[in-house]
């Protein structure tokens, strides 16, 4: 089966973000960028399914600036067979992204779409669910285990109360949670090979989709800092402070 893996270029998860002085957003100039960690897990899952012989072709796709080609090359170094960039420098939001992905799904006809449950920049957690709705596919969100069977997939989901397993008819959308797998690192030979794998570039106009943002960001602020606390020297002092100063126990 063919699997589509949408990925996103985001700020590296180790970078401490700074809000711009004019409150227009977060400063991304000269900041290290990387593949969203949940997307790495999605690529890894697709690659493992291919290694098991369940998947025959992995197509990575990203929607964003030209520089997102770097992340697509990474996905191909990890095992994706080819990739598609829907190139745009405009601000993009989940509904628009889901519409673009729907157009790709209609062209590629994958039996499964595996993507990260959320991106660590805007923390939206929407795109997979929206794509599922637009394409009429069932969804297995926040997956910690994926088992493909004939014509269906069983997905174990991390939910607030524990774990829930659902069975979905294929084609289906799966979004990844942290415990699904531990992504591998790309080897140097695979990084070299990835440079020769096909990478198609399209535009939103090619797909005929309207990606106009529906939400405007009025301002972005730094959250209130917590006041500096005190160090206590002993458990006795801690208990005393919690009882008499903070009055929380």
């Amino acid at each position, binding site marked *: 089966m063919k699997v589509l893996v949408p990925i996103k270029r985001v700020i590296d998860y180790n970078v401490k973000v700074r809000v711009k002085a004019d409150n227009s957003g977060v400063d991304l100039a000269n900041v290290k960028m990387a593949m969203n960690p949940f997307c790495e897990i999605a690529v890894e899952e697709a690659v493992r399914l291919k290694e098991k012989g369940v998947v025959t072709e992995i197509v990575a796709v990203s929607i964003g600036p030209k520089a997102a080609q770097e992340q697509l090359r990474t996905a191909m170094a990890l095992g994706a067979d080819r990739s598609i960039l829907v190139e745009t420098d405009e601000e993009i939001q989940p509904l628009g992204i889901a519409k673009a992905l729907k157009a790709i799904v209609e062209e590629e006809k994958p039996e499964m779409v595996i993507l990260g449950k959320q991106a660590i920049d805007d923390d939206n957690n*929407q795109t997979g*669910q929206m794509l599922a709705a637009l394409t009429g596919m069932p969804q297995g969100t926040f997956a910690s285990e994926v088992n493909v069977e004939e014509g269906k997939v069983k997905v174990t989901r991390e939910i607030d109360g*524990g*774990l829930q397993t659902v069975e979905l008819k294929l084609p289906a959308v799966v979004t990844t949670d942290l415990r699904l797998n531990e992504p591998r690192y790309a080897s140097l030979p695979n990084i070299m090979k990835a440079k020769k794998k096909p990478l198609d570039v399209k535009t939103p106009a090619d797909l005929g989709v309207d990606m106009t943002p*529906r*939400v405007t960001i009025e301002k972005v602020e730094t959250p209130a800092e917590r006041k500096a*606390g005190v160090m206590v020297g002993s*458990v006795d002092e801690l*208990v005393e402070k919690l009882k008499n100063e903070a009055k929380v126990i």
Partner: protein
Amino acid sequence: MSVLVYAEHDNATLNKVTLSVLAAAKEIGGDITVLVAGKGCGAVAEEAAKAEGVSKVLCADNDAYEHQLAENIAELVAEVGADYKHILAAATTTGKNFAPRVAALLDVAQISEISDVVDGDTFRRPIYAGNAIATVKCADEKKVITVRGTSFDGVAAEGGSASVENLDVVKDSGLSSFVNEELAKSDRPELTSAEIVISGGRGMGNGDNFEILYKVADKLGAAVGASRAAVDAGFVPNDMQVGQTGKIVAPNLYMAVGISGAIQHLAGMKDSKVIVAINKDEEAPIFQVADYGLVADLFEAVPELDSKL
């Protein structure tokens, strides 16, 4: 102007987080209707009818809604939501699962995990793991929103007397089915609504060592949480994870034990009123957000704490 609030429940009782979503609905303003979808969920509808500020409860009681499958719930909410300007759900794994699906069916944006209502079109929400707060304005006619429960003080659970109307709308996509569930069973309070939370990290060493935290938790009536590192290492199950992609908590007292304080963990607990950190590494970033820090070996400090409570 009217607001539809989706009730979070387990078919038996209304989850307290719904009271917080109702508080957000109240700030938006207008008539509030609560939708209860489930199986055998009549008691939940009765409970919702008593909540402060609710004008009407719609109860969709059907097999198709028993396990909150997103495919069925989204179709139901999109249809019922046609009459409402705002559709609100809790930013729980249930709400996050179906709400974007509703928004896409209605061809509108979804606004995730709001922490503040500015007005009916404008909301504040944390981004970048809470390291920035965005004020966002939505131009769509209809707004589909998930609400961060810990950011809103819940409305009163009692005092209201809304009418309950049964809804005979059955949406069964046939695309997905429930297989099974492994739910954590605990006599301790639920993490997201507990007054006191005590969490362990990688420093706990293994799952058995969490026993020392459970002892303290039971003395304080606290819930027990964990950092991602502790969950990834298999010490404790995923439902205990506090952080950017786990649970968001804001108790009166949060005790971080053997947790270094990665930004992803801080995102889940830094709105707690009082934070205590116990860690043997005095350089641990957790101390920068702690009101009270104790540099100590947790295996000595926690049993001592237990003996002194």
